[in-house]
């Protein structure tokens, strides 16, 4: 990870036990977080989880009720937004409707005192529009631009100020799926090129996972888990994270024996599973009620039991309820007598050698010990 120029490890943004209340509602509850220079960090969570409040406290639109917000090691609780070295890309962009593209982008420079010379402003606006590939659009009106173009104007308007931190509040929510994919890549590339700290707020797990160095999963004003996208996907600390980050099947059961990282679980529906992994911070005792989480893509399907790979954690006989074509994958909804409904995801290339399963067909499913993760039951 990159550090500040002076080599010291002062975080660019830090929350120190930050709580924010709106009347009775606690929007942020004892947040502790350090964001390093040059990092791409996401706050991920459903609406109302406090992610936007956290972002707005960095921008200066909200003041913490308790605790401190620090930028470059300096407490900024009372510093008004217009004095902070951060810039924001707003949800639906908040571009100035009465100004053209060039003047929107130049806005931040024009607020400086002393105001930079005209030629300097023109040069930097042109450079910014180059960066977001909007050269030639200088005199366009905002409402003449498409959603994706507006998004890039908003980016240019924020980045021209060379902020220490760029805040992005659901920046892609208003775009269609295809454009959103493209913009995700563009944003990531941009961040690498400009080397500015990006803080993204989103409710879209795919967006957070695909772009960020680090993701904070939030719930009810608190951070549930933070880590790299792979950490969160592979090692969720609880069902909430496992469910929020990717899809997961949960099978309820009781601990029979626990040993090392793994455990043998007796499933409520019948049969046992040998789970190879346990959620972080969870210590298991026999008799504990738990959930066994298995990712759909970890479950293998076969028409004959002997066609399944050996050494699985469990073998389940089930019937195909439904088949969903997803392009590169096929998702099956299955139903077993003992475990109820669960999902699997199979790559389509297997179709080339084997015809896909039909609804109503009886199949056998299996997953490896390593694929089974024991989590708390709630």
């Amino acid at each position, binding site marked *: 990870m990159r550090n500040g120029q002076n080599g010291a490890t002062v975080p660019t943004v830090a929350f120190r036990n930050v709580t924010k209340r709106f009347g009775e509602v606690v929007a942020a509850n004892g947040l502790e977080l350090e964001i390093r220079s040059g990092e791409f960090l996401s706050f991920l969570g459903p609406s109302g989880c406090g992610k936007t409040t956290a972002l707005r406290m960095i921008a200066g639109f909200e003041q913490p009720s308790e605790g401190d917000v620090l930028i470059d090691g300096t407490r900024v609780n009372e510093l008004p937004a*217009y004095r902070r070295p951060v810039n924001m890309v707003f949800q639906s962009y908040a571009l100035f409707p009465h100004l053209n593209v060039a003047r929107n982008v130049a806005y931040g420079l024009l607020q400086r005192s002393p105001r930079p010379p005209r030629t300097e402003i023109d040069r930097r606006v042109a450079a910014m529009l180059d960066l977001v590939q909007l050269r030639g659009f200088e005199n366009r009106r905002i409402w003449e631009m498409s959603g994706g173009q507006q998004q890039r104007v908003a980016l240019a308007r924020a980045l021209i100020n060379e902020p220490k931190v760029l805040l992005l509040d659901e920046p892609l929510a208003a775009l269609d799926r295809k454009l959103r994919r493209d913009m995700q890549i563009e944003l990531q590339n941009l961040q690498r090129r400009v080397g500015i700290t990006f803080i993204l707020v989103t409710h879209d797990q795919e967006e957070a996972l695909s772009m960020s160095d680090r993701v904070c999963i939030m719930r009810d004003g608190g951070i549930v888990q933070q880590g790299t996208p792979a950490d969160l996907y592979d090692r969720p600390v609880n069902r909430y994270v496992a469910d929020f980050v990717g899809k997961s099947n949960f099978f309820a059961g009781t601990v029979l024996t626990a040993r090392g990282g793994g455990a043998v679980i007796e499933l409520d529906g019948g049969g046992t599973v040998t789970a190879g992994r346990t959620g972080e911070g969870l210590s298991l005792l026999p008799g504990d009620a738990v959930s066994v989480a298995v990712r759909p893509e970890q479950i293998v399907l076969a028409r004959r039991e002997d066609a399944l790979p050996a050494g699985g954690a469990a073998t389940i006989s089930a019937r195909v309820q439904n088949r969903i074509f997803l392009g590169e994958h096929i998702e099956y909804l299955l139903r077993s007598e003992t475990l109820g409904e669960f999902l699997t995801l199979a790559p389509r290339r297997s179709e080339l050698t084997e015809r896909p399963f039909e609804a109503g067909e009886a199949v056998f499913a299996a997953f490896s010990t390593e694929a089974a993760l024991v989590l708390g039951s709630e």
Partner: protein
Amino acid sequence: MAAAAVERGGKGVTALLVGPAATFFLLLLVLPLAVVVLYSFGERAPAGGYAPAFTFENYLNLASRGQAFLNTLMMAPVGTLLCAVVAYPMAYYLAVKASPRWRTLLLVLIIVPFWTSQLLRIYAWLLILGSKGVPAYLEMIGIEGVRLVNTRFAVLVGMVYGYLPLMIFPIYVSLERLDKRLLEASADLGANPARTFWQVTLPVSLPGVATGSLLVFILLMGEFIIPALLGGGKVFFIGNALVDLFLQSRNWPFGAAVAVSMVLVMLASIVAYMRFVLSRGGMRQQPLV
């Protein structure tokens, strides 16, 4: 989509939909206007009224009402401007600063005086500006001989007072609709509150100011009660000239000519004004009304 629906319904439906409005316009706007234009080329009947003729005499005589045209064309814009200057801070307070709990009450309070007759409210100003009103108080602090009533100043006060709500409400609406994130964006980009006001709030709410100004301007151009009462018949508007020509001199043809000229002058001012406002840009996005 609406157009498509009409298309499907066929021409009969279109006629049915447009018919009432078209009839309304034809009977109540176009026809009377045509009559006025026709009259304007006629002659005054011996005992007053209209006698058919074809003469440009009435138009050639317009110069005799030059002062009234001049008064109207000077005072209506000035009154509109003053109205906007006074209304804006009030609308701003209502839309931005006032707590929502009080806002409705305050809005109602602005309208309440207008439930009483305009005449009575103007009379009240006659007393306030009359010698036992403001001048008497000025005298108490040693400023003597101030006369306010029957001056241009009094007429302006009356005009601003009389039309203030028409200015406040459109501005209020445009400020109330103003996306608060634009203000945050401006602050985020380094503009302090004062600069944000001048660079964002004011320009974005200009359509409201334009709407209010247009409403007030049009009504002020036709105003005659306020100059008659607070101007004491000395500050004379086109409206007063028209009232005189129709109700006193009974010179309908000349009155018609003055009316036609007033409509033309008003249209020209409105077109000029709209051009100016539109050229300032940013106005097309939000509808003017």
